[in-house]
């Protein structure tokens, strides 16, 4: 029996030996450093393994026989090895060579591409895939937290709202601080103020761009990169490249379909008082002020009302308890569908995309839908001539609602009191709108408002390669944008009989933006080691935006539904027109493919420049050294990549009002039915671009075969001739505005980005982290006082020695525990009970000390999980509306924070004794800005969490023609960690003009909070 058992065991062991061998081995690089996480697969099977931290792998359960192994690893060339498995298994050592392609990947740099290794400027790149990982109101919001040096403040929760993007801080006061956006070579129309500020929102010119069409985004950050855009490059340049036709892995076109569905809700809701609380606090204020009987109530009684009248009003008012926040918000829904085809067919390659999305925000009535199509073609008409076209057409419809200061949720947070009913009277008590006080529901229900944007961005390019190494490209582009802001005020809104009809108006902006450029590039090999590249070019761009205002009365529908038969008003309003004519060149020199130098020059003539400064000439130089290519580092086992680069040069910002240099007249309007002509502003023949002298030094370092890869940059930007817009030359001059170059600004910073592959193998984990620290100060504003810049609303001012967007406020000290009244600090720091504008001090700043993001990505088998945190450190938020919600008791509703108020001597309370009289707070006005509502802006936010599942190959094989299937659930703005007591610490409110946009982000005035979204996405590839 024992023998039989022994025989069985031996034969079992033998059989194991014959049928279950393993292939073991070790994978290393040329420097004999183990490669961790390399994939080793037996060709033709699904068997494989990953190397461990010693570079060792083992593929188990392999039958005896001959196999071919495929060994691959990121950053290395793939290797193939034949192996014979015998009864004792097999062992092999594999050495992978460094993949030079990574260094030879191309980066778009403006008027051309460069290999990564030869880029000597600071350029960041992000793929379209990484921009489409979450639902955002507009594509630029998806850049948030992902690129070092790129700070993105997402627009508010309004559908389609635009983000504020700042590349390496801000160094403009009155000129636009936004980067230049270039889509497939066209500097696109990007004016946020084409439609002014209406309803608490600026138009977002980027919202019509379909993020699904984007192949990659490159960000040019320093002079060494951005100087090629001359007087328009200083704020950085965002180059957007759309997808082109590609040959797929299968025969026939590659088809992709993505659908997603989701919800929108606010990240926070205001804690407004209900009727009982409002009446109680108002009564307390009245009695604190010495009043007797019932307090008078806005909309019901007045301070002069008799005691009986006040009592009657109080009883009537207390019967209502309207939750205006609830009535103006909802759970919004989102859906989007995107279909794309891509293929190469003989000499033609194409990419075609069709997309529809409809995003409701959480505000009742607010949504943004976009239907867009794209066709990008490349046609090789001759062996050395290629014609390419990019065509896109989109129609965005933004169904607008009033917000912030103009009503809607903003009214619910301010003037709409809980004691006001929505309607009253009639049999059901709902026949008539309440109009004795703010009633946002009237507008919500009776106003139709749609901003329709038709956008076509098209270009055609010819690439000609007449002789070896000479490349000529000619491209013409046309960017058309039509904005039709249609509003209809119904009879009930106007409070007139339904039979009369309502008022309709259209504010139409029609922008034609044409450009062409012609470049010639010649690459010349000087000798075995030295290469020279020269690119020269010429560009012209002209943009005109015509604005027409049309209005009619006594109609029943908005313009977008029915164009009226007759117009009451039909007039051309101020628009904008500008042009740039430019010559530029880029000279590149490389030695041994590891030393690189570059010279950029550009001259810009612009219609925006005054007659004494017609042309801007802005050069820059840069150099880089790929140290890891040197012999002494080639064999280093730790450092796999090291590059130093530096640049210095001039770059400009000419994002200025094109009309500002002229003495201009207008002729609109009539007086006494007779025509009028009037001057609007004084000319400025010296108006010119802002000049930035920028230098940058950076290092790029890869360790352990680039498992750790980081970049570190120091940059320094000195701006002279900084524009101050709306300069208040004395208002008594009678001129509305004046723009001049008077300022000096310094903006310095450090940016750091690192990517680590923490775990490799079956379970993979990688981390991307970036942080940017900025030092910013205004060095000079000429002879003007800080108050001469009227654009920075809510008391941000340009103060010498302080950063742009300095909060300039009276300092609040404390609430006097005996009197319950606020105590301020005067200019000398002494306590005072008087609020005086002369006591204002520089006390805060809207710019953060640092900002950045961290993405952790995990994958296991078909699952992947991506978690993005973004963060802001330091800086301030000024909660401008809090002075009314938590200040003097007025006709505004207030917040439950007031429960922590002073009520009796000895109380140490956060808020003062309630009063109806602003004089008790030492002021003549309730509109006093103090540091009481200035808060630390630090926050960290779980911006995006995506859990995806990709169907495995074996499952896919069962589905005919299906190449890939991916399912994902996505949540955005899930968690926020902040001390900020207001709604949402990420604030990009509506702005009045460029100065306001530069100086007053992080100032909130009834600004709707960000949205939190939950989505489900399915992506199918064919």
């Amino acid at each position, binding site marked *: 029996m024992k023998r039989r058992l022994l025989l069985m065991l031996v034969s079992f062991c033998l059989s194991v030996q014959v049928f279950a061998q393993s292939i073991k081995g070790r994978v290393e690089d040329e420097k004999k450093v183990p490669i961790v996480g390399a994939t080793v697969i037996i060709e033709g099977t699904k068997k494989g393994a990953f190397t461990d931290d010693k570079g060792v792998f083992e593929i188990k359960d392999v039958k005896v026989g001959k196999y071919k192994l495929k060994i691959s690893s990121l950053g290395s060339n793939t290797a193939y090895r034949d192996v014979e498995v015998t009864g004792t298994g097999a062992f092999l050592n594999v050495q992978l060579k460094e993949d030079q392609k990574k260094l030879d990947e191309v980066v778009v740099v403006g008027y051309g591409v460069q290999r990564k290794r030869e880029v000597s400027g600071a350029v960041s790149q992000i793929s379209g895939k990484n921009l489409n990982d979450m639902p955002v109101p507009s594509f630029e919001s998806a850049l948030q937290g992902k690129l070092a040096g790129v700070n993105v403040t997402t627009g508010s929760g309004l559908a389609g709202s635009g983000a504020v993007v700042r590349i390496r801080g801000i160094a403009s006061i009155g000129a636009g601080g936004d980067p230049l956006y270039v889509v497939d070579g066209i500097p696109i129309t990007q004016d946020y103020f084409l439609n002014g500020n209406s309803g608490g929102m600026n138009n977002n010119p980027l919202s019509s761009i379909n993020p699904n069409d984007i192949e990659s985004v490159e960000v040019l950050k320093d002079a060494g990169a951005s100087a090629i855009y001359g007087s328009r490059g200083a704020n950085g340049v965002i180059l957007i490249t759309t997808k082109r036709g590609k040959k797929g892995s299968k025969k026939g076109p590659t088809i992709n379909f993505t659908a997603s569905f989701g919800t929108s809700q606010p990240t926070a809701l205001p804690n407004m008082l209900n009727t009982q609380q409002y009446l109680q606090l108002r009564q307390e204020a009245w009695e604190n002020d010495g009043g007797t009987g019932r307090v008078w109530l806005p909309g019901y009684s*007045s*301070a*002069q009302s008799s005691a*009986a*009248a*006040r*009592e*009657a*009003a109080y009883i009537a008012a207390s019967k209502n308890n309207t939750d205006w926040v609830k009535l103006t918000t909802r759970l919004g829904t989102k859906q989007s569908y995107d279909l794309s085809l891509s293929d190469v067919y003989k000499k033609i390659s194409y990419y075609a995309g069709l997309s529809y999305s409809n995003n409701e925000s959480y505000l009742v009535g607010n949504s943004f839908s976009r239907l867009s199509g794209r066709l990008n073609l490349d046609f090789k008409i001759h062996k050395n001539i290629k014609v390419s076209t990019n065509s896109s057409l989109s129609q965005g419809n933004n169904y607008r609602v009033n917000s912030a200061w103009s009503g809607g949720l903003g009214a619910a947070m301010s003037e709409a009191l809980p004691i006001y009913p929505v309607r009253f009277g009639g049999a059901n008590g709902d026949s008539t709108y309440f109009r*004795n006080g703010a009633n946002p529901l009237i507008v919500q229900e009776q106003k139709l408002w749609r901003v329709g944007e038709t956008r076509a961005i098209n270009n055609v390019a010819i690439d000609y390669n007449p*002789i070896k190494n000479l490349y*000529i490209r000619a491209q013409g582009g046309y960017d058309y944008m039509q904005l039709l802001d249609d509003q209809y005020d119904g009879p009930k809104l106007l409070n007139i009989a339904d039979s009369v009809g309502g008022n309709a108006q259209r504010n139409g902006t029609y922008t034609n933006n044409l450009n062409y450029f012609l*470049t010639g590039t*010649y690459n010349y090999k000087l000798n075995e080691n030295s290469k020279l590249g020269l690119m020269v070019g*010429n560009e*012209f761009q*002209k943009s*005109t*935006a*015509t*604005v027409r205002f049309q209005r009619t009365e006594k109609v029943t529908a908005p313009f977008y539904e029915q164009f009226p038969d007759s117009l009451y*008003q039909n007039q051309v309003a*101020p628009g*904008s*027109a500008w042009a740039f*004519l430019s*010559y530029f060149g880029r000279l590149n020199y490389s030695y041994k493919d590891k030393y690189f130098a570059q010279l950029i020059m550009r001259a810009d003539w612009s*219609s925006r420049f005054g007659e004494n400064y017609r*042309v801007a000439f802005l050069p820059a130089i840069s150099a880089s050294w790929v140290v890891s290519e040197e012999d002494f580092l080639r064999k280093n086992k730790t450092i796999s990549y090291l590059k130093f680069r530096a640049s210095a040069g001039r770059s400009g910002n000419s994002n200025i009002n*094109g009309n500002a240099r*002229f003495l*201009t*007249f207008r*002729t609109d309007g*009539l*007086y*006494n*039915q*007779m025509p*009028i*002509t*009037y*001057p609007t502003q004084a000319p400025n023949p010296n108006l010119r671009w802002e000049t930035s002298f920028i230098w940058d030094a950076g290092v790029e370092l890869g360790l352990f075969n680039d498992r750790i890869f980081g970049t570190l940059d120091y940059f320094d930007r000195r701006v002279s001739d900084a524009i101050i817009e709306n300069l*208040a030359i*004395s*208002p*008594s*001059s*009678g*001129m*509305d505005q004046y723009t001049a170059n008077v300022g000096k600004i310094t903006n310095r910073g450090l940016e750091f980005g690192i990517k680590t592959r923490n775990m490799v193998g079956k379970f993979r984990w990688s981390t991307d982290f970036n942080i940017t620290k900025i030092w910013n100060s205004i060095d000079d504003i000429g002879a003007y*006082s800080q*108050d001469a810049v009227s654009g920075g609303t809510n008391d941000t001012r340009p103060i010498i020695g302080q950063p742009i967007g300095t909060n300039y406020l009276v300092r609040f000290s404390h609430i006097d525990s005996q009197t319950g009244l606020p105590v301020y600090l005067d200019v000398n720091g002494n306590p005072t009970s008087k609020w005086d504008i002369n006591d204002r001090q520089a006390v805060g700043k809207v710019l953060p000390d640092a900002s950045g993001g961290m993405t952790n990505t995990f994958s296991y088998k078909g699952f992947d999980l991506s978690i993005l945190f973004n963060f802001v450190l330091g800086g301030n938020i000024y909660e401008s509306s809090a002075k009314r919600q938590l200040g003097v008791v*007025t*006709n505004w509703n207030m917040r439950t924070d007031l429960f922590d108020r002073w009520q009796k001597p000895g109380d140490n309370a956060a808020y003062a004794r309630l009063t109806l009289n*602003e*004089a008790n707070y030492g002021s*003549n*006005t309730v*509109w006093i800005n103090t540091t009481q509502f200035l808060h630390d802006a630090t926050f960290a936010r779980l911006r995006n969490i995506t859990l995806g599942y990709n169907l495995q190959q074996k499952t896919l094989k069962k589905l005919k023609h299906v190449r890939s299937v991916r399912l994902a659930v996505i949540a955005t703005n899930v968690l926020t960690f902040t001390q900020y007591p207001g709604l949402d610490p990420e604030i990009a409110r509506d702005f009045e003009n460029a100065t306001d946009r530069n100086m007053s982000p992080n100032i909130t005035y009834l600004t709707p909070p960000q949205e939190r979204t939950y989505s489900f996405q399915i992506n199918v590839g064919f």
Partner: protein
Amino acid sequence: MKNNIKIIIASIFLVGLSSCAKWTEIKPEGFLLEDEAVKSGEDVKRIVNSTYDALANRLNGNAQIFNELLGDELADYNINGDRREMYTRGVIAFNGTSNDNFRGIYRCIFRANTCLEYIQKFNDITPTEKSTLEGEIKFIRALSHFEIAKLYAHPMGTSSLVDANKEQSGIPLRTKVSIEPVIRSTITQTYNNIAEDLISAIELLPAVHPLNTARKVYADKNAAKALLAKVYFQSNQYQKSILVLDDLLSDASLKLSDSLNHFDSKSFNSEYLFQFVSTGTGDNRGAAFTGNYRTDNVAVPNLQISALAYNFMKQDTADKRLNLIKVINKGKPDEVYGSAKFNFDFIDVPYLLLTDMYLMRAEALAITNQNLTTAAADLNKIINRAYVDASTKVMTGSELADVIKFRVRNERRREFLLEGDRIQTFKRIGANGEIQTPNTIRNATFNCNGLIFAYPQTEVTIGFSQNPLQTCN
């Protein structure tokens, strides 16, 4: 080969150079440049027309309401925001509403001064037309400076409570186009400058403006005289005012309106000497009046008459002007008072009224204690129109000057309820050194700094003296 390269590179530049820098000479969109906008005398006329337009948009009730907010004839109801600052006499340098008004009025002056530079440039208009245009410009400039002086400087007078030497700060005077800051002139310089403009305007303007038909839309000789009289009157220069008024009122064509409502124009009101005109609902130059005070299409008006003002008016029930007050919710706890003066879809805004001229002369004569018969006769014109049994109210001319003065001021208050007159009258009398009964309006003495607005902060440059903050409630 090398030649090919050179040719290609050169051609790139040639294509570039062919697009010359002139391509960037682009005209602003929606604007005209000087050489397009001002090509002829007709264009200059259009600019002059625009000065009226701009002024009409300021004096559409807004500037008048500011004055009322400082006074005591508005109920403390629905007065919020910037208006609240006015009501509590604490207008600071950042009050957007007052600053808009300041800017808007100086905008008229800027336009007027721009015209002055062009008038002599063109020969397609006659010398008479040029004179008229220049006269109008000076009239507009004077009117604008006057409106600013009323809100931004203490009144001129002999009272030591302001400055008996009349050297206190006036306003920045703008007599030419300039972006340079200007500091405040003294109050004497201010009023002298305004008067000089008007004296010149009287010389330059025709008796009948060629564009005026029934309505006094554009300034003529009488309008300039009327304004000069008002300027002298407001600055306590009564003798000068009387001289101008004697001249003006000797014009037999001037006739008081039968209507007690100054806003009841129905396209023609015989007593208007100068008015801002509306031509339809879409062109209502009295929009701030109708929008805030109208009582015929709302349950309660936006702005209401104070109980104090209503009680004052009610003291004499024979006063037919009581009919211009609408009592809302009469007898109920929530009884409030509105005005029926502005119950029209659109109105002309009278700026210079014959009623005012008679009342000014009557008061000026009473103050200077001369020709009381004329004073009484002037006053009686107003009394006869206003009372049910006027014969019992009229003056004989034999009353003491103080009696006439008291009475004329009483009538002034009744005539101009809600028209922005009361606070200016109070300030004028105070600056003349008179002790008034009561000597305060809503607790404010006439010289309280709270009764003048702070200049916009951007106006305050080196050497510019800002009005100090002082509340007086």
